[in-house]
Each structure stands twice: as structure tokens, then as C-alpha cells.
């Protein structure tokens, strides 16, 4: 069930990322919708599904980019794995935990992208990449982290209603 809703959602997010967010920028950054979805689904208790979302989401992003297909998937699968380690305990543990996870996930996602681009033989200006791309995007991801996690938690509760003992 998670894939019936998840895959079209990821396709939609990838299209939005390429079409709308390519034009609109806020403080030079733009949110990483697929990354937010993967983290959000993981936080909502997606378990192994989170990693599959990472694989599919990464493939979709790479199809709309000049990066070799498969590379972003590796980054998102690893991020999905990290998030799923905390599944179910996040909301109970600390309200700020999703922000911490999003911060770590965003930094990891962009750093892995940069390493991949470097391996492709491109020059990287690390100072520019950090100040003008990674930090603004991470900040926007943090702003959207809680609403995204809440929305995906709501979706998950609809798909898999929690069992109630009577």
C-alpha cells in the first residue's frame, strides 16, 4: 500500500523539484523534496519502505539531472537506513529530534552529491557550495521538516490505522 501512494508521490515531487523549484529560490536555496519525503516517511515509522523510497526517489532525481543514474539512490538509501534506525522512537524521544535528523540528512545528502560530482571530474568550490547552496537548502529543509513529517505521519496513519484495543 505504501508503494501505491509512495511512488506516484515521489514522481510528483521530482517533477515539482525540477519544474517549479528550479525557478523559485529562497535565500539562494531550495528545498529537497524527495529527501524530505524519505526522512519524513522514515520518521513516521516506514521501516524498510523508507529505503525503497530512497532508491526510487534517487532514480527519479537522477533521471532529471546530469548526475549518473543510481548515485543519488545510494545516498538516499543510506539516509533512509539511518532514519529508520530511530523509527517509532523519534516523536516520543524529543520534539527536536526530527530537526536533528533532517539537519544530518541534508548535510549528508549534499556532501554525498558533491563527492559524486567530484568523482565525475568536476572542480568543486567547497566554500561556495557550503555558503550558497548547502546551508541555505539545509535551512529550508529544516523549516519544512516538521510539517512534512507530520503530513507523512498522517498519511501513514490513514494507510495503516493503528490498532485499538477495545
Amino acid at each position, binding site marked *: 500500500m505504501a508503494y501505491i501512494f509512495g511512488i506516484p508521490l515521489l*514522481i510528483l515531487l*521530482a*517533477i*515539482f*523539484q*525540477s*519544474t*517549479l523549484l*528550479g*525557478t523559485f529560490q529562497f535565500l539562494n*536555496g*531550495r528545498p529537497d523534496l524527495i529527501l524530505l519525503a524519505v526522512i519524513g516517511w522514515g520518521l513516521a515509522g516506514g*521501516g*524498510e519502505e523508507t*529505503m*525503497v523510497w*530512497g*532508491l526510487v526517489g*534517487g*532514480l*527519479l*532525481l537522477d*533521471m*532529471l*539531472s*546530469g*548526475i*549518473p*543514474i*543510481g*548515485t543519488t*539512490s*545510494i545516498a538516499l*538509501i*543510506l539516509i533512509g*537506513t539511518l532514519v*529508520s534506525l530511530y523509527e517509532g522512537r523519534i516523536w516520543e524521544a524529543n520534539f527536536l529530534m526530527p530537526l536533528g535528523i533532517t539537519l544530518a540528512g541534508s548535510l549528508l545528502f549534499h556532501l554525498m*552529491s*558533491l563527492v559524486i*560530482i567530484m568523482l565525475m571530474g*568536476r*572542480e*568543486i*568550490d567547497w566554500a*561556495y*557550495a557550503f555558503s*550558497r*547552496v548547502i546551508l541555505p*537548502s539545509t535551512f529550508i529543509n529544516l523549516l519544512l521538516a516538521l510539517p512534512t513529517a507530520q503530513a507523512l505521519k498522517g498519511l501513514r496513519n490513514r494507510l495503516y490505522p493503528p490498532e485499538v484495543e477495545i
Partner: protein
Amino acid sequence: MRRVSPRVLVVSILLMIALGVLILNLSGFLQPVQTILARPIITAQSWLALRFSALRDVLASPRDMATLRSEVSRLEAENALLQQEIIALREQTAEVEKLAALLNYARGQPQSSYLATNVIGRDVSPFIRSILIGVGSDGGISKGMPVVTSRGLIGRVVEVFATYSRVQLITDPEIVVNILFQESRTEGVLTAQLNGELVVDLIDLSAELSQGELVLTSGLGGKYPADIPVGRILSIHHRDYDLFQQATIQSSVEFDQLDIVLVITNFRPLIFEQPSP
């Protein structure tokens, strides 16, 4: 024997799939699959891009956009053609003055033919400066074709699929363009800095450049046709102890506002084969 946890198993399988896809992609076997898989996504993206573009235009100016769009598209192509003719005429005049002694000299500027198309998306990676356009090999696009707007050069086609293509912008550091300064008749090599700034290097130290001077493609190297506007000189960096001078260029194109672009379809770029060891 210790049992492998299901999570480790799932992660390993997924990572292997991703690596497999990556290897297939790098070896070029994935293109047919990508073409098929991308078709519905690109259709949806083109639809959304058009609506989004129309919405943006409606918000920007309350006019009948549907009719205007097709008219704009036609006029952009016509305008680009006229711009090209003006520049070609200026070039010819300059050359006639300079090479008056050389009879029977003709540059032979073939008339460019353009294909107008919509920009349907931008590279999702913030570190790669490229755009997706809504025509591919089905529409007669091939790799290496230069892409312009009525204002000037924007880049060239680097990847072609059946229904869409990827255009690498001149603001991407991977792209190198041989240019010519229109007034001083000096040549140079344009590259983008990592922050997207356009810089011309390898300019003869004795050349007298002036701020605001028009920069055109020189046609050297065979990757771009000659005389396409690239931008104007913003600042000049001239130091007597350097071997060459440099110039920062203000592009004539607003890369953030690209909507419709023109692909020069009758230009065949020269492809140099790597010498065998």
C-alpha cells in the same frame, strides 16, 4: 551461524540494485530503458511546466497568454534570425575593411535554422547548471547542437532522449566557448567560474578592450557557430606582469527566466576523436 537481520538484507539488496543501475548507466546500456521510463514523466513535466509558465505570465501581465505564446515563439525565432543577420552584416563590414586587399574572400555564413522549444525543467542538482527542453531525437535534436535565445547563446545539447534533451548552460564550469570581442577583434576563451560568473581568459595583453564591448562566439573549435552574442564586458583585469588579460562578462541572457529557447538544428559541431595511444 549468525542470522542476518532483515534490515541489513534489504539495505544490501537495494544498494546492489542502485550500484547495478549506476554501472549500467555508466556503460550506456540504460539509455533505452531511461527513454521508455522517462516518457510519461516528461509528458507530465511538460504539461506542468507549460501551465506553470502560463500562470507565471498571467500573474506578471494580465493578457491572453495562449495566443501570445505562439506569437512570441514565432517572433523569437524571427528576431533571432534578424539578430544573426545584423551581426553577420557587421562582421562582414569589419572584415571587408580589414581584408579589402583579399579579393574573392567570402566567409560563407550559412543561414541558421531554429527550432523553438519550451524549457520543461532545470537540473535538480544545484551543482550542475543545465536545463531540460521538451524536444529530443524524435524532434530532430542531436547531441552538440547549440541552443540560443533571441538575446544570445545559452549552451549546447549534451544528452538526447526520444522526447527531451538536456542542455548544458554556458554558466556551467564544464563548458568552454571560444569568443571574439566585436570591436577590438580580439579572441579569448570563455569559461564559467564555480559561482556561475562568466570570465574570458587568454586575451592578448596588448588588446585594448572597453567596458560594455559586445562578446560574440568566434566559431573556432567548431562547437558553436560564429557571431552569436554571448554578453558584454563588465570588467577588465589587466596586469602587466600577467601573460594574458581577463574580462568578466555580463551575459545577455537571463538564465533564471528561460522559458522558450531556440535550438540551431542545421549546425553540426566538429567532434575531435581522442588520439589513440
